């Protein structure tokens, strides 16, 4: 199993890494026992954004496609979850709504990705088209305030946002339902993060991962090795965008509302900052970085939203100028170098 999870496409592969992974996971599992339910609920909220960041990391860091459209798929899936959950009538059908919402995001990625990739839109234009898509969606949803804008029983509600959907819940014995809120949502999202993270590790260290990294480096050479570059790019775009969709559906379930502001320009820039700052070349760095940044961002937002946004901008600029490969990766490599030097020094002294 470990041979599938480890490989040249991920930074942490050794025994020490996997021991740390188990320790961190253990701490995350034990956290609700020592923290109050409000803080645990907040942590579930921070976890929700990790999927979107991981999706962008896969597209941008591994395949070289800088998508500004993560919030487009976040919005498609978030609104879809709302519409489906309201029309399905809640209950166990919310799980189907979650799955269908992610599938819808994937289908949108298939259509948009097909036109972009087969239309040879690449480089900076890829970012421009995906950003345009998200801005158009935000603009459109913002203009659906009237009562005529509804799908079944679900009103889109313009800038005020859609509300009234049930959170994810499953029927339980005795006619009860388990609602995924607070601590139970925390565990659900944590489990999903572990599954998605491990699945992405297997993906990027597989034949597929080798090819998308080659495409990032030189698409023409990759094609001249016999790979249909367009198919690999499209599949990567679909997986990355679906992960943004997963964030969107979970977000709507978490807050039982969604507004166009979660799709607009400031929101669209956030995943870029998270992934650039963390280190787009590695999914572990992105996972850790995205979680920490959303935690810090949210803590500052409580006092001043403007200060939090300024901090995000400053972080992006600092990353570009000081650590283009990302701070989490840079710091981790620095620690590893320091540890190696110390070990080498110790063995020399012993000799």
């Amino acid at each position, binding site marked *: 199993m470990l041979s599938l999870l480890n490989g*040249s496409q991920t930074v942490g592969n050794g025994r020490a890494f996997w021991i740390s992974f188990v320790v961190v996971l253990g701490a995350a599992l034990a956290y609700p026992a020592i923290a109050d339910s409000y803080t645990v609920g907040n942590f579930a909220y921070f976890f929700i954004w990790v999927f979107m960041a991981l999706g962008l990391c896969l597209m941008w860091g591994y395949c070289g496609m800088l998508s500004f459209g993560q919030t487009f798929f976040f919005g498609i899936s978030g609104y879809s979850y709302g519409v489906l959950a309201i029309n399905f009538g809640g209950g166990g059908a919310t799980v189907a709504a979650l799955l269908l919402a992610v599938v819808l995001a994937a289908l949108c990625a298939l259509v948009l990705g097909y036109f972009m990739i087969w239309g040879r839109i690449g480089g900076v234009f890829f970012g421009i088209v995906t950003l345009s898509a998200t801005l158009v969606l935000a603009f459109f949803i913002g203009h659906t305030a009237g009562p005529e804008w509804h799908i079944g029983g679900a009103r889109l509600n313009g800038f005020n946002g859609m509300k009234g959907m049930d959170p994810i819940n499953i029927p339980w014995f005795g006619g009860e339902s388990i609602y995924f809120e607070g601590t139970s949502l925390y565990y659900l999202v944590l489990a999903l993060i572990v599954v998605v993270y491990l699945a992405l590790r297997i993906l990027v260290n597989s*034949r597929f991962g*080798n*090819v998308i*990294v*080659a495409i990032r*480096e*030189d698409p*023409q*050479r*990759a*094609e*001249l*090795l*016999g*790979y*249909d*570059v367009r198919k690999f790019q499209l599949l990567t775009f679909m997986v990355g965008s679906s992960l943004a969709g997963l964030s969107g559906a979970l977000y709507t379930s978490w807050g039982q509302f969604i507004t166009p502001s979660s799709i607009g320009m400031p929101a669209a820039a956030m995943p870029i900052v998270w992934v650039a700052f963390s280190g787009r070349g590695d999914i572990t760095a992105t996972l850790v970085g995205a979680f920490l940044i959303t935690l810090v961002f949210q803590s500052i937002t409580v006092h001043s939203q403007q200060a939090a946004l300024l901090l995000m901008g400053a972080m992006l600029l600092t990353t570009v100028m000081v650590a283009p490969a990302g701070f989490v990766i840079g710091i981790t490599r620095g620690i590893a170098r320091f540890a190696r030097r110390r070990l080498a020094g110790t063995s020399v002294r012993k000799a």
Partner: protein
Amino acid sequence: MSAILKTISLGKSFGGLAAVSEVDLSIDEGEIHCLIGPNGAGKSTLFRLIVGTYPPTVGQIVFKDQDVTLQRPYERVKLGMSIKMQTPSIFKQLPVRQNIHVALQDHVPKHLLAGETSRLLELLDLSGDADKVAGALSHGQQQWLEIGMALALKPALMLMDEPTAGMSPEETHRTGLLIQQLNAQGMTLLVVEHDMTFVRQIAQRVTVMHFGRLFARGSIAEILADPRVAEIYLGKPHEH
């Protein structure tokens, strides 16, 4: 001997400029065929047409009796074509081993992949540099790495565009020996080259291009003896 590759009245124009025109080239299965000509003769453009990175303006390309004119490069590669480009086209930010690995992975069973990668690295004399990023290799080593990546596909036809550019005389000679070794194993090679010593070392047949057209063809001895070829390479002798 049957032709593995044929181009029929192949032409490529960029705007009003014809880079390649009316090229009828035939490469026999199992031969080493060299393509020579002055700079700007259209050799590299012809290579790009054959491998599919440029679509032709007119004409047809037939590979292994299949019309591949409209096929994308990866489809031609899957049919058994492989190319080494003029300037090293490798994945410079990736380790040398990974460059070979990604080229090999679809052509070798998974359990043999590591062993076959090591064997190729040894053949290319790159075992000692396997964990370096490819961009840190010398120019000659990068050329060899790209040759290795092209070889990893186990092609029936290998196209090599100036494989020895930037190599030392010793490296050039070794490349010649490698090409002869590959040919002895049944591979067909079409090689663009300027270095006539190298062409003499490897060529079984030679085609000369000039101004985008086929100018002459024959054995290396016939080509070297052709005064018209000397003229396009060295310029027209002054008449006194």
